[in-house]
């Protein structure tokens, strides 16, 4: 055809504009929600005054509630949400399936099992780092099990079935571990581990989870280009220079680190890794590499919004975070399944 009819745009300037404005918008929303999150709570806290006091180095009740209660809760919500969104996007890119997410394929519940063993055995009291590490180990086992059950190019059906199996196993094992725990409260706490909660988390929980989470983020974010290449299948990706074994390892480790350490301190929060990538994918042209950061931000926004909603309900005991995400996510999941039914399973 006539090649001169079209001149190449200088460095695709048009497409570069959109990604940065999308990310910019997400960051702004996140900052706004963070401010709201700091302002919401049972106590009548004057956030502005508290911040001013803290900046002046004063140590008052207001700064205590702000710094020790609200800030960790908000920051942990952002970190956990970002981890789930990022892991969801990465898993979907790797498995080339929009239904893959840490909750559905069993990563979160296995991580919860690991954390439960470390916590109720008292092991994490002597070695605090054992808690997130146990969560990570649980998550790793889940991914390895998933590969063993579903294989590398698993169909949607196989993937979901494998996830059901892993979730079933992890749930049963967790219930058993809690039953065997020495403390009588343990049995009732399964709700925390299976549904997740940000309530009364402290700075020490942040310190435990954040470093390992961020290492996981680095591994996941580095896989962007390889995930793009995988769009065309493993052979083409390999021909484009992707080292498939290394990619899988990075993604497995990254997911385990990011999700496992989060679950260890907040329990398993479901559906964020499904909804966030799905909402953002059309906005990034369905390109896996561009989805990663966007999905992370969207996940953080989702979790913060859910947590704010929970704290805004003043009647009755505080809802678990996973309840709200499931209320949004489960119908979402059903919609997705119905839509995919038309495609080949």
């Amino acid at each position, binding site marked *: 055809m006539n090649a001169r009819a079209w001149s190449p745009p200088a460095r695709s300037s048009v497409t570069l504009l959109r990604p940065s404005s999308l990310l910019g918008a997400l960051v702004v929303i996140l900052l706004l929600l963070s401010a709201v999150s700091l302002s919401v709570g*049972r106590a009548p*806290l004057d956030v502005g005054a508290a911040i001013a006091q803290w900046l002046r180095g004063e140590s008052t*009740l207001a700064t205590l*509630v702000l710094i020790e209660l609200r800030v960790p809760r908000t920051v942990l919500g952002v970190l956990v949400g970002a981890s789930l969104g990022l892991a969801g996007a990465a898993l979907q890119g790797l498995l080339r399936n929009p239904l893959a997410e840490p909750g559905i394929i069993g990563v979160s519940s296995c991580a919860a099992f690991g954390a439960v063993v470390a*916590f109720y055995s008292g092991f994490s009291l002597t070695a605090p780092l054992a808690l997130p590490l146990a969560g990570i180990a649980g998550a790793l086992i889940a991914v390895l099990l998933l590969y063993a059950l579903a294989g590398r190019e698993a169909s949607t059906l196989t993937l979901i079935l494998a996830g059901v199996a892993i979730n079933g196993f992890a749930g049963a094992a967790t219930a058993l571990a809690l039953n065997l725990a020495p*403390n009588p*409260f343990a049995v009732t706490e399964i709700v925390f581990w299976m549904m997740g909660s940000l309530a009364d988390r*402290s700075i020490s929980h942040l310190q435990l989870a954040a470093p390992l989470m961020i290492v996981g983020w680095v591994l996941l974010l580095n896989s962007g280009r390889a995930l793009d290449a995988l769009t065309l299948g493993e052979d083409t990706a390999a021909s484009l220079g992707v080292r498939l074994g290394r990619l899988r390892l990075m993604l497995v480790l990254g997911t385990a680190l990011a999700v496992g350490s989060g679950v260890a301190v907040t329990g398993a929060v479901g559906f964020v890794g499904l909804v966030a990538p799905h909402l953002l994918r059309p906005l990034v042209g369905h390109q896996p590499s561009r989805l990663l950061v966007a999905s992370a931000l969207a996940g953080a926004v989702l979790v913060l919004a859910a947590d704010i909603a929970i704290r805004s309900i003043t009647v009755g005991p505080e809802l678990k975070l996973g309840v709200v995400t499931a209320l949004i996510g489960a119908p979402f999941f059903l919609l997705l399944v119905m839509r995919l039914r038309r495609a080949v399973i």
Partner: protein
Amino acid sequence: MLRHAVAAALLAGLASGSNAAPQRIVSINLCADELVLRLAPPGVVKSVTWLARDPALSNVSVQARYVPVNRGLAEDVVPLAPDLVIAGALTTRTAVALLQRLGIPVLELSLPSSVEEAFEQIATVAAAVGAPAQGAQLIADMKQAFAASPSVLTFISARPIAAVYQPNGFTIGSGSLINDLLKRAGLRNLAVEQRIDNYGALSLELLLFAQPDLLIMNAVENRGPAMAYEILRHPALMSWYGEARVVSLPSAWWSCPGPRLVDVVQRLRHAAQQLPPNAAR
């Protein structure tokens, strides 16, 4: 009052049946365990609950070691051929119904909501086990001990506020035994001021902002970690409430009618007096 009537009817039934005190008493309730072990003649108590041996939960853990334990199931109770079973308000209805159907006399104790009701319950159980004199003696001793403790004196304006903080962030408000004990110690109960009836959740933020003068928490138990305890060890709480303002009480002391109630009030009064003078508001 109704409880008195029930007890009287039961005693009448017992008296008409055997004309003697019960000889085979089984308790399937933790509070009843303490009362029967303290009041019943030796050798008459054939079984108490397994919880009675746990020093974290029971005030008579030593005595309970010499008595067989049961798990509160009808299956445990029936083979012992008891002539009196003492159950609690929270004992499963099915177990109680089964025992009654088998013709075994069951005395049901409710949760006392005040010290007066606790005294009534002591009297009831003492009568039921055929030791009314011991019961009366115990009540008299306790009343004397309550009166003997120095009453709380110098508070600038109002009485100090205390908050009971339990695992999972629960507090206990009006209509409970501990609430009455707090009153007798001269303390106000934060839960009551927050309009919490009996058990209720108290968010950590609200607790901190309400700034109670005293925090009443369970004594340290070595029963393994649980998420329920995390809130009690939250850095925000631990940094704001130093040792002087935390009263560590075994929950067993204020859960059941018995002489330990006196110890609770004494300890509370002592702690209230240790408060710095400007603590009371």
